[in-house]
């Protein structure tokens, strides 16, 4: 049943693809420059394949890890290339996907035409398929030469192997491992009234908008809008942005952003000692991430809530396994073990919204025990965007080791040296007091009142605000002005794929921060203000060598280098 549905979905998609435009021509505009190359993430790759070919297509390979830079995978994507082992894997996946797309089961649905003979090349049919698929995969129409090259590959291989579909599959393989697919290529030209900046072209705008809001490649209406120049007018842009903000697909975009900002990719290597913490498994780690993402989506999207309330909300979502972890009774309809249940903490419960959820406290801990320093640092850097200075080199720990008390019972006792030694205290005082407030949550996220038989004291302070427990910490984060500024900064950085310049940091707070505050810190409003802004679609002029002609001129002159 599900398979039929999936195929039906793809049929309608394929039908939509039919009749799309051929390769677009550049007109007599100023030459384009490549201003950004951002590798698509694992999730984006999966999403695009599902969008274009449907969910029944299996990927059949592994991804090399996405890299984190300046705290975000989105920024790392602008730095990475593809290593040799990574390309091997992309090739494996591309061949696997292409083979499925052209196989007997899928070809009636995926390929909009039939060749004259299945044993010989058919340039017309190959061209039809490759140009329509290419447009969606490359996020822009293929150039004439690109299309011609792809058709030639299909034709050559078809001849050699006496199989039209093998040839088509080969061409599709090439496209799926090309730099055009794997990297979001952002092209721009000089802006009319702005000497210092370049303006992204229509397709690049469409990509930015779509990856921000839906974490995937532009859909057909958005591509059409780009083609017709609609994205160059603020009305046209707003229309598309509003369409996408109103769609249920917005949830995917919001999830992708917070998943990146909160560092969830680190869960992949996370393990807790199974003897000390047998409850913690890969399943619970997955549930923990999902719990926080559901909390976020529910509060910010479904309830149109205030972003700051993420740190004080008492509403969350639990599975039976999470119930066992947090020691909260959870029953589900029909006792299904994987179902989610909405849960509301009582008013006096010691929790602090998403900070006390396992996805934060378990992620920022060691395998065998919690770590106030790691948690404090994470809270500063992830939620407040405040960089903690690196530790000094060649610190002589021998001086601070209290050999009389080697067996401290609680973390607070163990970290005495961090507080008392002057070389250490400077930085540790901005981390440890925060993390110590979360000490009631052990390394898996379960609550505990004691550690090694000694009671835990969860009091602490942040930037002068004192609190007596985790709840107080949540409130302090809620009230801290850096909190909202940070998410604005993170979202803009995530959206543009690079750290903001000094000038942009100032304008960000002015243009987006104030609107965010006025909206009651509504996430959708923030997304809209970024998605419809000028800043989002322009880049400062990169360093360009003047003697290299632009690609569009080359295409027109038919030169091949």
């Amino acid at each position, binding site marked *: 049943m599900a398979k039929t549905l999936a195929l039906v979905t793809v049929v309608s998609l394929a039908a939509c693809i039919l009749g799309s435009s051929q390769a677009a021509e550049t007109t007599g505009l100023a030459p384009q420059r490549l201003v950004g*190359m951002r590798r698509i993430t694992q999730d984006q790759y999966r999403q695009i394949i599902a969008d274009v070919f449907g969910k029944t297509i299996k990927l059949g390979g592994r991804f090399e890890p996405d890299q984190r830079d300046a705290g975000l995978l989105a920024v790392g994507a602008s730095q990475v290339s593809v290593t040799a082992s990574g390309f091997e894997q992309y090739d494996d996946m591309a061949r696997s996907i292409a083979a499925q797309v052209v196989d007997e089961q899928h070809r009636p649905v995926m390929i909009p035409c039939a060749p004259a003979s299945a044993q010989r090349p058919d340039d017309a049919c190959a061209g039809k398929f490759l140009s329509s698929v290419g447009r969606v995969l490359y996020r822009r129409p293929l150039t004439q030469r690109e299309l011609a090259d792809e058709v030639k590959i299909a034709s050559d291989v078809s001849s050699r192997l006496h199989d039209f579909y093998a040839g088509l599959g080969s061409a599709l393989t090439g496209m799926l491992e090309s730099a055009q697919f794997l990297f979001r290529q952002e092209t721009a030209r000089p802006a009319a009234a702005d000497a210092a900046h370049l303006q992204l072209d229509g397709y690049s705008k469409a990509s930015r908008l779509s990856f921000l809001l839906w974490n995937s490649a532009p859909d057909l209406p958005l591509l059409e809008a780009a083609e017709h120049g609609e994205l160059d007018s603020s009305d046209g842009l707003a229309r598309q942005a509003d369409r996408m903000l109103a769609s249920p697909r917005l949830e995917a975009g919001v999830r992708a952003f917070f998943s990146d900002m909160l560092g969830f990719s680190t869960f992949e290597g996370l393990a807790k000692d199974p003897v000390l913490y047998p409850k913690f498994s890969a399943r619970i780690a997955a549930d923990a991430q999902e719990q926080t993402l559901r909390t976020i989506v529910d509060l910010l999207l479904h309830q149109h809530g205030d972003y700051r309330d993420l740190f004080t909300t008492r509403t969350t979502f639990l599975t039976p396994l999470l119930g066992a972890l947090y020691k909260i009774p959870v029953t589900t309809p029909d006792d299904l073990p994987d179902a989610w249940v909405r849960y509301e903490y009582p008013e006096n419960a010691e929790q602090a919204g998403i900070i006390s959820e396992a996805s934060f406290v378990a992620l920022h801990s060691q395998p065998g025990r919690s770590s106030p320093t790691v948690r404090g640092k994470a809270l500063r850097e992830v939620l407040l965007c405040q960089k903690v200075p690196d530790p000094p080199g060649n610190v002589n720990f021998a001086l601070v080791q209290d050999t009389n008390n080697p067996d401290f019972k609680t973390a607070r006792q163990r970290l005495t040296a961090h507080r008392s030694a002057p070389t250490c205290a400077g930085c540790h005082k901005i981390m440890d007091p925060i993390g110590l407030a979360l000490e009631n949550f052990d390394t898996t996220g379960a609550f505990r009142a004691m550690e090694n038989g000694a009671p835990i004291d969860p009091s602490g302070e942040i930037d002068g605000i004192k609190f007596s427990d985790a709840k107080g910490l949540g409130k302090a984060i809620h009230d801290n002005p850096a909190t909202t500024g940070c998410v604005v900064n993170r979202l803009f950085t995530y959206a543009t794929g690079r750290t903001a310049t000094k000038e942009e940091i100032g304008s960000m707070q002015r243009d987006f921060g104030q609107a965010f505050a006025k909206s009651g810190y509504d996430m959708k409003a923030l997304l809209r203000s970024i998605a419809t802004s000028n800043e989002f679609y322009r880049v400062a002029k990169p360093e360009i*060598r003047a003697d290299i002609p*632009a690609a569009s001129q080359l295409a027109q002159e038919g030169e091949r280098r």
Partner: protein
Amino acid sequence: MNLAARLGRRRVLRGMLGGAAVTVGMPFLDCFLDTNGTALADGTQLPTIFATWFFGCGLNPGRWEPKTAGKLVDLGPELEPLRPYMSKVNVLSGFKVHLDGKPALPHITGRIAVSTGVVPAAGQKTALPSVDTIIADQIGNKTRFRSIEVSCIGSRNSESVRAGNIMNPSEVSPAALYTRIFGPDFRDPNAADFVPDPKVMARQSVLSGVKDQLTDLQQMIGAADKVRLEEYLTSVRQLEQQLDLELQKPEPLKACSIPQKPTGELTPSAEVDTMHTNHKLFVQLIANALACGQTRVANIALTEGLSTLRRSGNAVIHHTHTHEEPVDPKLGYQPNVAWFVGNVMTAMAEMIATFDGLKEGDRSLLDRMLVWVSTETGYAKVHSTDNIPALTVGGANGRVRTGQHIQTAGDPITRVGLTVQQAMGVPVNSWGGDSMSTSRTITEILA
């Protein structure tokens, strides 16, 4: 077998591809092993291999250094597991990283300085390539894999970094590595028949097209992204190279035997038992891959710089012990830390035993290897970058003189990286940055 001759055959193959599958009986190439199995038929040696073996949090100072300098006649207690292999090992003591006032990020700076020769300035990332990638670029372009990276504790972050901070991620599962090397794309060098697969040639057309499509892009691209595009192109070429090799009959390698798929691997974690199990499986697999000519560069990361090794059921990791465990007044060192060091050394001995145990004629695989054993600190307790332990293992086909203890009083550790590159034939006269810039090869170990 020189490259030109090989290219000629490849062109011939392509031209013959008029559809019919080409069946080639033996012998296809006039290369045979000599009767000893220690060299190729035309007299050239079996190629030299480079490997790195990295572990974090160093050793305990005063407990590993041999007392005598010059010939290696004694070992510190922590190096005792290496006693059976003393004649094949060089111990290098007293080398340090000069910080030149730049920040020392614990467990990061030392590692970067040792492998790239430079301490990054405050806030900067590594821009230079690590030694293994320099060597791989030199010798890795004739094998199916330019290099292989593995992690024994499940971390994909490796030490192997190409220019522009492009890291080669580590394999974490021996079974997955097995499939990559000895799976469906493996060509047995000792197989009697060889049939080039027309589908492989189709794949080559595809890759050719992928490269061609980059032309326009290369014209439009800015300087910053140019390096990344070049890297991408290099990766495409590496796969092309693999496919080229699949179309040629490989030279027989007597010592090559296809291993069984590894069993008993444990879900990667930093638990000591898991580390040992997966390390053993990886090292055996790599030894087989090397003997079968699949690569000439292997990078084995036992642990990360900040060693997360731990005992099952114990809350405290190796790294935490190095800071929090008091020095035992009677013993004079930290007992728990020493336990972890003992496990590192056991693994090191296991690695040496495995490479030395793979016989090629009357020699061992180790004899044509240069394994560079490195770590990132001289005393983890205080994050010291003085007296960082280093060892070389193996004779590199006679290029490296072994069985020595080279003792210095604070020489820059870049001397080691320089010497290692020269031993592997990299044409470099000096290496390293700022105070660590050096041209002083450790001549005692270079033949």
